[in-house]
């Protein structure tokens, strides 16, 4: 008989225990009666025979107990009993249970949400074979790009790697359907990409070495499902990307989205196709890409040989780099490479990291406050249950048994809290997922609550149960039997001076203050950010993004297209003006270039925009001097418009109109000056900006985004969405329109970060305040209740109610005051972290600190005053008799 069936036997016992017990009784009864029959046959009368049989059998109860034990999993039964018991206990005080569970749910839910963000952004885990052995090659400057010939040399000469692959990410191509072109994001990859990554297509295959220049494609699992209905016959079929035919050779593994985490990749094509797929890559090249060592455009990923450390591989790389430096010197800049884990987040946003760490601190604080609160409630409850514990100890329950019972109760609370918290986190991550999908880049973070996150939540539940449950459990059962039965609660008298309970009150006030300061700062920041002057007028402006390059347009053909589109749109009814821009302001990601006067070495870093005529008028960015771009610019130097901030920095004290300005060494003539307008974020100080002609210099703008048509209407901007879409579709059905939004929504989105922070902290702050108030009220009422007799005596020997009130309030105020002082110190030292996210308010804003302190003090004192007043109003005689 196997262990499994033994287990099953035991389980079946658990399920029909009642029946089993009855049967056991019957069996023992049968035994006794049979024995009695025998004795009766031997001459005894029935009654005597029965009595003797019973005596002989001994303690039936013990036999039953032992028999039952044969079937039970001892601890499971005990646990079930404990859980049933605490279920009953909580049913008796549902208010307490609800308060505890909700506090914990908020704390745990917030932590789970932030952890799912941390998991998505900071924790590794490409869905590939042995991801730990994948490294990416970085230059020390942090730039991750290498030239093709260098890549080939490293690949051939460094023996520490199984193999090395290279890729060029973010190749936009439109996937053509009937009249609905969708923009997909692809990568150009070396043919060994899939084997190196360890992501061999489960359907079809990766690329063969011979396919370096072939028009073949591997599509992602999600595109295969979404666009091709998971048709297994897709392999071998030709699909059209950017107007060109590609033969599908494979479908990538599910969840695999390329080696750059967070960046969506829909398809992969061989690197040799770069000329047809990304013609602008050749722009400005001094030779062919595959021979030019100065064109650094490839992201290189390598798979370490089994058992080799990255450090040894790095040394081997360095040796090769040294040889390459000798053979192909690059001036002063030496080749040096670092190895990094291959799945580092694409957008190594330091901002995201510091936001995350701030959030982690905050949610940890929320959880701590919740724990302190529940611990407080439990302590108070333990005090009230002294008598119950005393009786249980008296009838022989061990102290460990009681502690276990109390910990079971804590665990019960925290599990319920975790369950509710997981639901909250699920709601929160869903909301967050929707928010980030509105970012105009192919970014997708895996925010799902997977096993790892749920494990984290469960662990959190257990840890919190210990944090808030252990101390009250130990404290509550320590008091000996005698006094507990007397029930005067004097075991807690020792706590009154500065025991656990008081420290909890102080901690709670302090932590609540930190959270309230944070929410105060963020809410003020949000208000400031919402009312900041933009330097432009987003009213009635529609933004329509489309991507000519994804549809296979060359720069020359795109220039023609821009003219036709602008002409067509301006002729539409209700259109006041229309212009094009490569990236609308407040998108966080314009290119920055060095701008200087000719001959000057020091350059000013400026955001560069490619725009067409009427762009400034459409967005309401005023021109202070000079003129706008014209449809046909005069021959000579290309034209540029600069903003006031740039004019001040590059041409101090001079009117730059008519002067020449260089960006990245290319001379332009300044034809106009605009007012300062926001460029990247609302919080920024005016940034230098330079505008050049999108039509003439489209080749320069080959970032990830296409171009954005901005249209000012004479009414509601949304009414233009369909006519403009229709016009674009009419001009070229293959042209992917990937985003339509109003400028007002776009500006709103720039407020997302302060808004999300404001909302989060507003909610957390509110929770902290509510928890603090509830906790303080609970603690004060219990402590007053315990001191009922003392207060009664004071009243009886002549103290006036006012004196008692003053005494209680003074003691409460003292605790709250200590908490406030500690909290202020804490808040002052951690608020610096928030600086990056604040607009128009200092992280150490005195008004916020003072206001929040007053608010918290007021709430805390109200929580103290209520029970104190009740106590002071007591009838002296009754209160002495209280017990």
């Amino acid at each position, binding site marked *: *008989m196997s262990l499994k069936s*033994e287990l099953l036997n035991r389980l079946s016992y658990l399920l029909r225990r009642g029946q089993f017990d009855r049967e056991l009784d019957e*069996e023992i009864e049968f035994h006794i009666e049979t024995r009695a029959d025998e004795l009766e046959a031997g001459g005894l009368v029935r009654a005597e025979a029965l009595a003797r049989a019973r005596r002989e059998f001994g303690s039936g109860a013990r036999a039953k107990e032992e*028999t039952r034990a044969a079937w039970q999993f001892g601890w499971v039964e005990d646990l079930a009993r404990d859980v049933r018991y605490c279920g009953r206990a909580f049913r008796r005080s549902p208010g307490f249970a609800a308060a505890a569970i909700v506090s914990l749910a908020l704390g745990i839910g917030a932590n789970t949400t932030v952890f799912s963000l941390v998991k998505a952004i900071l924790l590794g885990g490409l869905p590939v074979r042995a991801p730990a052995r994948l490294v990416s090659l970085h230059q020390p400057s942090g730039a991750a790009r290498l030239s093709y010939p260098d890549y080939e040399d490293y690949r051939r000469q460094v023996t520490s790697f199984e193999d090395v692959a290279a890729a060029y990410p973010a190749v936009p191509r439109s996937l053509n359907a009937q009249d609905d072109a969708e923009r997909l994001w692809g990568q150009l990859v070396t043919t060994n990409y899939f084997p190196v990554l360890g992501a061999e297509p489960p359907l079809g295959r990766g690329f063969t070495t011979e396919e370096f220049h072939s028009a073949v494609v591997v599509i992602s699992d999600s595109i295969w499902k979404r666009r091709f209905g998971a048709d297994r016959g897709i392999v071998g079929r030709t699909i059209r990307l950017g107007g060109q035919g590609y033969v599908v050779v494979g479908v990538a593994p599910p969840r695999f989205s390329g080696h750059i985490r967070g960046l969506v990749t829909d398809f992969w094509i061989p690197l040799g196709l770069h000329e047809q797929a990304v013609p602008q890559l050749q722009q400005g090249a001094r030779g062919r890409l595959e021979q030019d060592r100065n064109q650094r455009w490839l992201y290189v990923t390598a798979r370490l040989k089994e058992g080799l450390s990255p450090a040894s591989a790095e040394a081997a790389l360095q040796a090769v780099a040294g040889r390459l430096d000798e053979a192909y010197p690059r001036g002063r800049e030496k080749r040096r490479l670092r190895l990094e884990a291959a799945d580092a987040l694409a957008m190594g946003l330091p901002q995201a990291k510091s936001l995350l760490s701030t959030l982690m601190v905050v949610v940890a604080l929320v959880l701590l406050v919740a724990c302190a609160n529940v611990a407080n409630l439990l302590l108070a409850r333990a005090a009230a249950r002294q008598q119950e514990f005393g009786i249980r100890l008296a009838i022989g329950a061990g102290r460990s048994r009681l502690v276990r019972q109390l910990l079971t109760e804590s665990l019960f609370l925290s599990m319920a809290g975790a369950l509710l918290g997981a639901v909250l986190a699920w709601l929160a991550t869903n909301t967050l997922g929707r928010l980030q999908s509105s970012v105009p880049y192919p970014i997708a973070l895996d925010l799902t609550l997977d096993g790892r996150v749920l494990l984290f939540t469960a662990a959190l539940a257990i840890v919190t149960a210990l944090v808030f449950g252990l101390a009250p459990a130990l404290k509550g059962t320590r008091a000996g039997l005698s006094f507990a039965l007397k029930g005067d609660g004097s075991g807690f008298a020792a706590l009154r001076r500065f025991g656990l309970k008081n420290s909890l009150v102080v901690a709670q006030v302090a932590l609540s203050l930190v959270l309230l300061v944070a929410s105060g700062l963020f809410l003020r920041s949000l208000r400031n950010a919402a009312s900041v002057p933009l330097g432009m007028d987003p009213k009635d402006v529609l933004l329509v993004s489309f991507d000519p390059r994804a549809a296979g347009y060359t720069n020359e053909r795109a220039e023609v297209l821009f003219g036709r589109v602008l002409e067509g749109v301006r002729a539409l009814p209700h259109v006041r003006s229309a212009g094009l821009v490569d990236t609308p302001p407040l998108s966080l990601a314009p290119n920055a270039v060095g701008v200087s006067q000719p001959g000057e070495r020091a350059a000013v870093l400026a955001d560069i925009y490619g725009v067409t005529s009427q762009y400034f008028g459409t967005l309401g960015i005023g021109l202070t001097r000079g003129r706008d771009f014209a449809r046909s610019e005069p021959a000579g130097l290309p034209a540029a418009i600069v903003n006031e901030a740039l004019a001040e920095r590059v041409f101090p004290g001079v009117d730059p109109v008519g002067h020449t300005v260089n960006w990245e060494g290319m001379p332009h003539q300044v034809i106009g000056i605009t007012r300062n307008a926001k460029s990247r974020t609302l919080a920024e100080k005016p940034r230098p900006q330079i505008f050049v002609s999108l039509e003439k210099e489209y080749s320069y703008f080959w970032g990830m985004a296409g171009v954005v048509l901005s249209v000012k209407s004479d009414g509601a901007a949304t009414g233009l969405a369909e006519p403009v879409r229709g016009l674009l579709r009419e001009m070229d059905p293959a042209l992917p329109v990937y985003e339509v939004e109003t400028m007002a929504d776009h500006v709103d989105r720039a407020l997302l970060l302060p808004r999300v922070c404001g909302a989060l902290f507003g909610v957390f702050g509110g929770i902290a305040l509510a928890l603090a108030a509830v906790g303080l009220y609970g603690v004060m009422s219990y402590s007053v209740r315990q001191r009922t007799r003392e207060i009664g005596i004071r009243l009886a020997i002549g103290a006036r109610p006012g004196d008692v009130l003053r005494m209680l309030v003074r003691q409460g105020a003292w605790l709250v005051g200590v908490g406030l002082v500690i909290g202020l110190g804490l808040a002052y030292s951690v608020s610096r972290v928030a600086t990056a996210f604040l607009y128009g308010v200092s992280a150490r804003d005195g008004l916020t600190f003072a206001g929040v302190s007053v608010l918290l003090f007021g709430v805390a004192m109200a929580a103290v005053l209520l029970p104190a007043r009740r106590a002071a109003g007591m009838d002296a005689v009754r209160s002495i008799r209280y017990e």
Partner: protein
Amino acid sequence: MKQPEYPELLPGTLYMMVLRTLTRGPLHGYAIAKRIKEASREGLVVEEGSLYPALNRMVVKGWLTAEWGVSENNRKARFYQLTTEGAKQLEREAGEFDRLVRAIQLVMKSA
């Protein structure tokens, strides 16, 4: 009234003897105890208090099955029956026990 004194069972032998007793067919608890007492010519007695837990442990382990039936005195009684697993267990235990007894006897005789 004083209970007659019986030598106690060697530890661990109860299972073996119950299994052995059941090789001739199913019996209820009382009959098992009685059979052991008689077979040992009153030399051994099974305490009822330990018999039923032992029977149940053996059912849990799958050496026995238990079924309700009617006893010789027309009462409802639970009858225990040996399973193949139980028979194997008996063989194992009996073998080991024989070896143990022989070894003890050798020691006792050599002295």
